[in-house]
Every structure is written in structure tokens, then in C-alpha cells.
């Protein structure tokens, strides 16, 4: 089911900005239109472009918010999410827990 859902109507997660839009829907109860506008503004691109894999592949690497292909040295996991926190001006629970483990 994952493939037809993505191909028919999905944003594509970290292939584009789907994870970022999802975070705004869940953290701020934003409807999809508002969430896309918020993310697009933070990324400095249009709401059409945030679901464009071509644009987002380079932009995600530049912003260090995680890429869908494996690039040695580019942040993923907690490091990428810490950069997403700054980009979207939100707190992410796993990052908070990680910081709480540091001395």
C-alpha cells in the first residue's frame, strides 16, 4: 500500500519536505495548507516546490536536515532533527531527551 499511496498523493517524506509538513500538522494542529505555507516560508521556496524532490534533495543537504540518499558526513537522525528544530522553530521530543542525557 505504501507505494501507490506515495505515488498518488504523498509528499514523499524526506525525499521532499513531507516530514517537515507532518511536524507542523502534529505539533501545531495546522491544516495541510497552513502547514505547507509555514514550511515553505521557512525554507524560502514556494508551496509547490516543497514537494519537489529535485529541489528538496539539494536544499536538505545544504540545510543539513537529512537526505534521502546516504551521504557520508551529512547529518541524519538526532543531528538532522536538531537542525530541523532550529529551521522550523519547534522542539522535537527525541532531541530534548538527547540533550537531557548530556552532562
Amino acid at each position, binding site marked *: 500500500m505504501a507505494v501507490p499511496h*506515495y505515488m498518488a498523493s504523498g*509528499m514523499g517524506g524526506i525525499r521532499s519536505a513531507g516530514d517537515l509538513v507532518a511536524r507542523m500538522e502534529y505539533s501545531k*494542529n495546522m491544516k495541510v495548507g497552513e502547514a505547507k505555507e509555514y514550511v515553505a516560508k521557512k525554507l524560502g521556496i514556494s508551496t509547490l516546490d516543497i514537494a519537489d524532490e529535485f529541489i528538496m534533495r539539494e536544499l536538505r543537504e545544504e540545510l543539513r536536515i537529512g537526505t534521502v540518499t546516504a551521504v557520508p558526513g551529512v547529518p541524519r537522525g538526532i543531528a538532522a532533527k536538531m537542525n530541523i528544530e532550529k529551521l522550523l522553530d519547534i522542539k522535537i521530543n527525541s532531541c530534548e531527551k538527547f540533550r537531557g542525557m548530556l552532562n
Partner: protein
Amino acid sequence: MTEYYTRMGDGKRVLMTKEAIMADIQAGTADAADMAEIPALTSADMEKLFEIISDKNRIVGVEPGKEVVLTYDIGQLDFTGDNGNSGNGVDMGRLEAALLHERALGADTFELAHADYSIKPVKPIIANEMQTMEEIQAEIIAPYFYGAMPNMGLYYAPDGPYGNPADLMREFKIEESMASSEAAAEHLARDIEFVGTRIIAAGADGFNFDTTGSAGDADCVGTLNGVKALREACPDAYINVGMAGESVMGIHGSIEFEGQVVAGLYPHQQVKVAQKAGANVFGPVCNTNTSKSLAWNLARAVTFIKACTDVAEIPCHVNMGMGVGGIPMCETAPIDAVTRCNKAMVEIANVDGI
């Protein structure tokens, strides 16, 4: 006369004329409108739905710019589970399954799940789940939930400590049946708080409640009270409340959440109690009738969900699995049907996600 390839609710391919498809669209939307006392689809909506269903292409999709968020349920079980979950029977670790969904399948969110996918069996192994959550959160980027069904049936005999309401009703022990449901609902709410607060403490982005109300109205109330407790304990947790059906079954009949009887609530009413409990996202459901056509099922589903999104104050991610959201009830849902249902839900029902 031109005929179009389409599907029945069990997935079988059939040929139908435009007149037959339009007749089923009209009957499907009228059925939903009559049941829930909501508006039927407009003529323009029905014409657009016909265009989607009769599209000559094998797969269809939304217009660029109209993409929505895909929230996934059942976690790794879609790979590791058996055919009961349309699982592939491919054994793999939960980390690998999560990263495959994130990096190969375009998932916007994903989740960790227990093999039984129910709240109750998670309690004794919560430390294992917390450890795995911490490990996967270190690697994953997309929002990563814990997911489970409230599945209050597990609290009734012979699996649980409370008398089975159906058995008690057969013995005309109506009051005992209702009391049993209420006790089970309180137990479920306590378990949700126990499991939910611990998994959030392990770094989970949130909790996905799948098939709320599957054991009836008391299951729904127990879940909503659990959600309310979880929201109070974890104000920033992402909470998704997904339902089991288009109407809450009244097995108890009069049990309430915050003064609202939940039996018989439809999606446009269910979303209001979910909001009140503290959900961030609501997952409305409409089940598929296998004896009816895709046109009938999809028109009916879109009617329920459109009425829900019209009144919702929070995003709605409609359930679009096997046998819900207009999709045929079969293990291998045909992609022509799945993609048509997606497009209709986004472009007619205005959902925020799937």
C-alpha cells in the same frame, strides 16, 4: 455504449457504463447523507468523482501542489506480519523497517509497533519498547510514533479480567454487561496512560491510536479518557486518534465522554470528541461494502469524510487501508482503485493527510 473498467468492493474487476457508475455514486452519497444526516455530494463533486473513477489510466494522482501527509499505521508489521495484516512475512528488525519506510517508501511519518499491535500486551515489555524507541530515534529523521490498537476486547473473558458484555447480554444481565464495559474502559484508559507516558519519555514523537472503538462505545470512551490523560501528562506529544468505523457501535449504549454519548457518532461528530480529548490529528474511517462497487463505496466514504473535514479544527488523516476509505476489501488492493481513492479523498473530501 462505452464501458469503463472499475472495481467491486471485494476488488474484482468489472465493466460499468457511465450511467451505472453515476447511479452508484448517487446511491453511495445518499446512503451516507441519510445515515449521518450530513450533506450529500454536490453535482459538481459527483461529476468529478466520475472523472476520477473512469480515468483511462491505470493509476491517477493529485495535481502537483496538492500532495498531503501520509501517516503510517501498523509500523513494521506491513513487512513482518502475516496476511491478516496484509503483511509480507519478511522478517526484519524494527530499525530496518522504519528506515526503509523513511528512505525508500516516501513515508512522512512512521511508528514502532508490538507484534500484537495492542495496548495491553505492551505493558509487561514496556522497557524493551522504550529501549528500541531510543535506538531508532537516534537514527530516524521523520516523526516516529508508537502505534497500537486500544483493542478493548482483550480486557474481556476469556482473555481479560472482565465479563464479556455479549455473553452477559445473552443471559439478560444488561446492567452487569454495562458495568463490565465501564470497568474495562477505565482499565484501558489506565493502560494507555502507562504505556503512552513511558514511550514518550523514551523520545517518541507521539502516539497513534489505531481502530479506536473497535470493541464498541466503551472502547471509544476508554481510549478518549486515555488520550486525555496522556495529553495532560505530555502536553507536546503528537497524538493521532484513528477510528475503527464510520459509526461507533453502541454495545454499552449510553457511556459518555465529557457528557457526550459516543454510541452512534459519525466522523463529523467523532472528530469533536477527539479534539476535546487532546488529539492533534483525527483519522476518520468509512468501511467498504464488498457487495457494492468502487463508485458506491468511494462516494459514500468521501461524503462522510468531507463532512468531517468541514467541521474539524484539527487536521484529518483519513484511513485508506484494505477495506476502508473506499478501497476494496482484499489483501492485495489493486493500485488503480487505491490511487483513485487517494485522489478523491484529497481533491473532493479535502483531507489533510492519509
